[in-house]
């Protein structure tokens, strides 16, 4: 693992413009990811984890849009090519390229070859009418065409025109999926541990089990030998034993290929098992980040403490779980107060919390920061906000307005998180032991 930065996200804002108003799904998010590390993002449902992932690979769907921020990605070859073609400092910064400044075509050529994604639900992530092998071969083929001319950023070779389509229907030799890409697909299936990959490649997705499909999806994601693998809740739809297998597979592949993984989950056990560093997301921001030790052993933000408190401790039996009261706040812009978003659920809310906290460096490793005043000020009884303070404030603010709906807009905001879970559900500990 090298300590070189690979990705640097600065002030990322992703908004959804719904009929109920503007939803700030990702709010001013800063994040750096080093090459070869496993970075985890953890948070409740609706905290903006998945949208962060989608923003990174530029797959935010309408009505959502990335409105602000920069995504710097270290790619010396692309940077060179851009400078040669006369790009200015806005687009490149040394070896780094701002992904948001690239054209849509250029971004597409990065998908698969530099960034790949594993989605939450393997069952619905495969086209039911095409065999699994063909779909993996398709990914191989897309990348092969893109690489036919490695210098071409716009990947003209990737275009598959109408003429080719007509030819491929008439002449079997012009078929889109070639023998070579099929062989590679079988190889990839073998790599992810599918037994009898040659036969299984010709089967349809419904003939696979969930765990095998997730393996197949990892194979598909690996087709382009990506530098960054974005795993969006890769184990959420699987049962516990399969979860462990998939996580082992990811660890093994990461060790072999040295790729960088951005792992998004609501499962602290998965984070503890897999990650080098972790960011805790709440209401579209990263409220605390640091190394695994920083966050698990010396948490500062009460939300992180709350998450850790909601995990059942299997060894020290007894003692009730301590769920965080309340729900994820509404992310509608006009309902978002200008204060710490967590203050209304925070057991240690104080006067300072009525202002939005900046990121504070905290003791521990150099990465450890938190957006909480507790990092600098001591909590005392005198400064505490009175009980029910936010209920009254909320009610006062609501006079004349529509009643505030806690969950409005979140459903449209994060497509992949359809389930609305209670706090105890959304933070599970199964799937792995802290290492």
């Amino acid at each position, binding site marked *: 693992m090298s300590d070189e930065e690979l990705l640097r996200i600065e002030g990322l804002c992703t908004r959804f413009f719904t009929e109920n108003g503007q939803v700030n799904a990702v709010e001013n998010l800063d994040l750096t990811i080093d090459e070869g590390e496993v970075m985890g993002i953890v948070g409740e449902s609706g905290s903006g984890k998945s949208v962060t992932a989608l923003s990174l*690979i530029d*797959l935010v769907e*309408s009505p959502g849009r990335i409105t602000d921020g920069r995504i710097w990605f270290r790619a010396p070859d692309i940077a060179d090519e851009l400078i040669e073609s006369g790009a200015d400092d806005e687009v490149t910064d040394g070896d780094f390229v701002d992904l948001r400044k690239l054209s849509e075509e250029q971004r*597409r*050529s*990065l*998908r*698969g*070859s530099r*960034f*790949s*994604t594993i*989605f939450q*639900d393997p069952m*619905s*992530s*495969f*086209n*039911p*009418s*095409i065999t699994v092998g063909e*779909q993996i071969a*398709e*990914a191989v083929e*897309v*990348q092969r065409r*893109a690489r036919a001319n490695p210098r071409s950023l716009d990947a003209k070779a*990737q*275009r*598959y*025109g*109408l003429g080719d*389509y007509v030819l491929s229907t008439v002449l079997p030799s012009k078929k*889109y999926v070639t023998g070579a890409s099929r062989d590679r697909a079988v190889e990839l299936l073998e790599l992810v541990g599918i037994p009898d990959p040659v036969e299984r490649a010709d089967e*349809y997705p419904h003939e696979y089990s969930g765990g095998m499909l997730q393996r197949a*999806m990892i194979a*598909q*994601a690996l*087709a*382009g030998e990506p530098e960054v693998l974005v795993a969006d809740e890769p184990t959420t739809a699987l049962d516990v034993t399969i979860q462990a297998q998939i996580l082992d597979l990811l660890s093994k592949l990461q060790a072999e290929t040295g790729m960088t993984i951005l792992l998004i989950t609501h499962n602290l056990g998965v984070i503890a098992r897999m990650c080098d560093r972790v960011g805790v997301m709440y209401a579209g921001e990263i409220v605390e980040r640091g190394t695994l030790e920083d966050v698990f052993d010396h948490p500062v933000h009460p939300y992180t403490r709350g998450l850790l408190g909601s995990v059942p401790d299997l060894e020290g039996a007894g003692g009730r779980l301590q769920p965080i009261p309340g729900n994820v706040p509404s992310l509608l812009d006009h309902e978002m107060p200008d204060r710490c978003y967590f203050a209304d659920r925070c057991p240690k809310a104080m006067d300072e919390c009525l202002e939005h906290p900046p990121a504070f460096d905290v003791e521990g490793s150099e990465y450890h920061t938190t957006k909480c005043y507790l990092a600098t000020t001591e909590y005392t009884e005198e400064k505490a906000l009175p009980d029910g303070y936010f209920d009254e404030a909320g009610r006062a603010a609501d006079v004349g307005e529509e009643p505030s709906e806690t969950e409005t807009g979140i459903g449209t905001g994060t*497509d*992949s998180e359809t389930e609305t879970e209670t706090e105890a559900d959304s933070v599970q500990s199964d799937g792995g032991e802290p290492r």
Partner: protein
Amino acid sequence: MISDRIRRSVRSELHSSRLAQVGLALVVVIVLMATLAPFIVPHHPEAQQVGTGDTEDRTNLPPIGFSTEHIQTTPDGQTEIVREGSLEHPMGTNTRGQDVFSRFVYGARVSLLVGLLGAGIATVLGVPYGLAAGYFGGRTDDALMRGADVMLAFPSLVLAIALVGVFRDSGFHTTGLPDPFVYAARHDILGWVIPRSDHVASMPSSVTFPVTVTLVVALVNWVWFARVARGEAISIRQQEYVKAAKSIGASHLTILRQHVLPNSLTPIIVLATIQVAAIILLESALSYLGFSGTTLTWGQDIARGQSDQRSQWWIATMPGLGIVFAVIGVNLIGDWLRDALDPSIEGEGGV
């Protein structure tokens, strides 16, 4: 693209459904009839046999099994003439002495060609249009589908007549399609292979094919394909596998071709079948009204026989039956495919 499961379910539905068998039989008979027309018909469909003194008058003969009687006034007084249908003219003859059965068989050619080609062109126009509208969504969708709605706002027959009016002077209003069997029969060497080559050689060497009408029926009906394809694309666009395909860097065209089109084929196939029937009806209506430019179609023959409906009912009825059987047959096949491919599709009723 066609999986074993689909083949199995199409086959089992055919075994269990009597109506599907009837539909398939009707369509097979009509298709064979249209293809092999020169071998089947007893007479040249355009040959007239009006009595001129030298030749026998063979106009207005009744179909086989029927007889007509009418009083003929001659200088010698009145004689009652009884004419019986004969095997020579199984469906009788019309007012010009043309064999109704031969015209019936040849009429199937035009109807089927226009029906199949028209539905094919409509599919080729409408499906990509609708898929693009549904897949890209948003403003693209609005712009494309409002255009399609404009087409829908016109009654189809009125629109068709207007379009025929635009195209009819354009030089490609009709074209002659050569009949390969007749050509082969007239050929020196190939003629030996063709059975009854003398008879086949005497048949018309080409079929008058109404080009404008085919284009017009396609232009009138493509909107239905666009609408169905759009609906499918909208639901498929939201599938995770489309997102997954995007995440591996697939282009829009690849996604449309590889993921959206194959998964929206089922309702399109069903619709295309039903549209063949609708287009056969529309073609008949157009040629009945005289817009087709061909003289050998079912619709045209109905129009001709209409005035004699009281005394020579068979002239208009036989081509009418042809239309009915063709439309019913195609519709039954459409129902069969619908039931076999996707039982959840309802309300895509027949014509």
